[in-house]
């Protein structure tokens, strides 16, 4: 004390960024140590140096949301001959950064038949967190684009929000367990049985073991935290290790869902399309609320019925059908074809009045070679006509429905084509 000189050193440091305000800091300069002044100038230089722009944050998600940044300081000093200490500490909590998740629709698109509008079409979405911490993702604002379609109705978001855990790996044991910062697992909504993705691998979460918080011990020293440990069972992927700093994100299938009914194509013969998308918004507001529509777009094609029909006639008369004479038996063959390879056509009926000057041959109508139920003395092709079902496997003679399935291109006799025959005799 006796060797020191004190004076008040008043500086108002206005270093561009205003990093440090050193108003009224007492500085004592010992008489003998001009070195100290030099050290002081270096400190000032050091202060100036961080006016330089900082390197951009490396790509990655950063420390886990919910993690604690624990800083402790200990001062050790000598009072007379006694060594004493004091300490203080401060804890900061790391925020979850608003990060748009990865959405995958299931299915990615659908093709439905015109006329199946009463049946709701649904899409579900798998949502994968890309964040550094837990967050809740909310779907809203369903919009649609209708092309050549009318009367699509009821489009709505049927499952509108999902909470997903996420964190940053700080340690791992092979691919069987990871360590994340203390209090960032169950506190963030992670539960045993959840599915998470790290790198290219997918895991089922096993036992979660809580760590311990950082603290300052009785001697003023830091006791570092121990992280939470999460046991993992790989269910997909080929990664053989998990890197420190890797992002771990929970994903849930059918986490979001939409439903609607399609209408029918406005212009017959042209397929209609019904495209929908919605907005997904994060709950975390750091640094600003993230929202987007990526991954939500799905398109439903409504197939317009396009049927073709050909009619041929043959005769039992060796002279053919150019001229016929009374008593000849004529066989009419109608081939009804659904040109679409993707959509079936419902409510198909074929009407064919028996020609004048001919008489229907009782029980002669066949659909794909099978006797038509209810056939008798009168042609079933008279109004209201014969319902067509091209499915061979139905019970003989039973016309259960009037659907002409999509043309399968291969087994064409079975699907997409209905062959109807009947006979008449010339009067």
């Amino acid at each position, binding site marked *: *004390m006796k060797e020191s000189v004190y004076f008040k050193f008043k500086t108002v440091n206005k270093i561009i960024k205003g990093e440090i305000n050193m108003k009224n800091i007492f500085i004592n300069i010992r008489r003998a140590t001009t070195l100290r002044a030099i050290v002081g100038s270096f400190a000032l230089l050091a202060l100036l140096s961080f006016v330089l722009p*900082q390197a951009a944050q490396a790509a990655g998600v950063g420390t886990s949301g919910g993690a604690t940044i624990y*800083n402790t*300081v200990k*001062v050790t000093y000598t*009072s007379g001959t006694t060594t004493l200490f004091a300490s203080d500490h401060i804890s900061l909590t790391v*925020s979850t950064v608003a990060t748009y998740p990865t959405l995958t629709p299931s299915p990615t698109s659908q093709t439905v038949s015109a006329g199946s509008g009463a049946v709701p079409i649904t899409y579900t979405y798998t949502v994968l967190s890309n964040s550094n911490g837990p967050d809740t993702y909310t779907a809203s604002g369903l919009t649609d684009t209708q092309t050549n379609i009318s009367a699509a109705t009821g489009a709505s978001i049927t499952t509108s929000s999902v909470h997903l855990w996420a964190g940053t790996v700080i340690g791992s044991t092979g691919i069987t367990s990871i360590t994340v910062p203390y209090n960032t697992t169950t506190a963030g909504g992670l539960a045993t049985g959840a599915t998470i993705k790290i790198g290219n691998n997918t895991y089922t979460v096993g036992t979660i073991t809580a760590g311990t918080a950082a603290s300052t011990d009785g001697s003023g020293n830091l006791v570092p935290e121990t992280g939470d440990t999460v046991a993992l069972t790989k269910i997909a992927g080929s990664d053989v290790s998990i890197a420190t700093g890797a992002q771990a994100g929970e994903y849930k299938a059918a986490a979001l869902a939409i439903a609607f009914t399609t209408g029918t194509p406005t212009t017959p013969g042209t397929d209609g399309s019904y495209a929908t998308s919605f907005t997904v918004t994060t709950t975390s507001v750091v640094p600003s609320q993230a929202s987007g529509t990526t991954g939500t777009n799905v398109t439903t094609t409504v197939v317009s019925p396009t049927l073709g029909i050909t009619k041929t006639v043959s005769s039992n008369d060796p002279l053919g059908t150019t001229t016929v004479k009374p008593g000849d038996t004529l066989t009419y063959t109608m081939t009804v074809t659904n040109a679409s390879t993707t959509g079936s056509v419902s409510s198909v009926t074929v009407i064919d009045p028996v020609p004048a000057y001919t008489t229907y041959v009782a029980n002669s109508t066949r659909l794909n070679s099978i006797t038509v139920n209810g056939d008798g003395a009168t042609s079933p092709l008279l109004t209201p006509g014969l319902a067509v079902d091209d499915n061979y496997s139905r019970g003989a003679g039973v016309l259960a429905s009037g659907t002409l399935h999509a043309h399968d291109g291969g087994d064409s006799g079975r699907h997409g084509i209905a062959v109807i025959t009947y006979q008449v005799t010339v009067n």
Partner: protein
Amino acid sequence: MKKFIPLLIALVCLMVSAEVFAKSLVSVSMKAEQEVTINKEKKMVAVKTIDPGDVVLYTISYVNSGDEAATNAFLDDPIPKGTVYIIGSAFGNDADITFSIDGGKTFKKPSLLTYEVKINGKMEKRVASPEQYTDIRWTVSMIPDRGKGQVGFKVRVK
């Protein structure tokens, strides 16, 4: 005169006791701040939550509230887990600043903080980068009675 004797004794006792019980009592307090821009004006504000990538300024204030100078004071601060020390950010007037890359076992000036790596079979010396710093130490040879000061540093949250 006689009646002043007890007073004198009391005064002597007080002086003696002051001499006997004179001691230094240093305490520290820490605050965490972040730079924010309010109405185009940059300000440092206290923070409780922090975003990855953000810069935190830790300021440690020390004060000797005792009636004797404290000597050989060391302020040791392990760089918080989950953060990286920002080069050149440590400050402390009147303090000698050194760093550790071995968890606080040894402290050196940044230019002297080296470690050895084996390259092509030969051991090579490398100067440690700030990412490798584990602890900061401010050495203040004396804190006078009623004296106080501030030291601090900045980190970037990983």
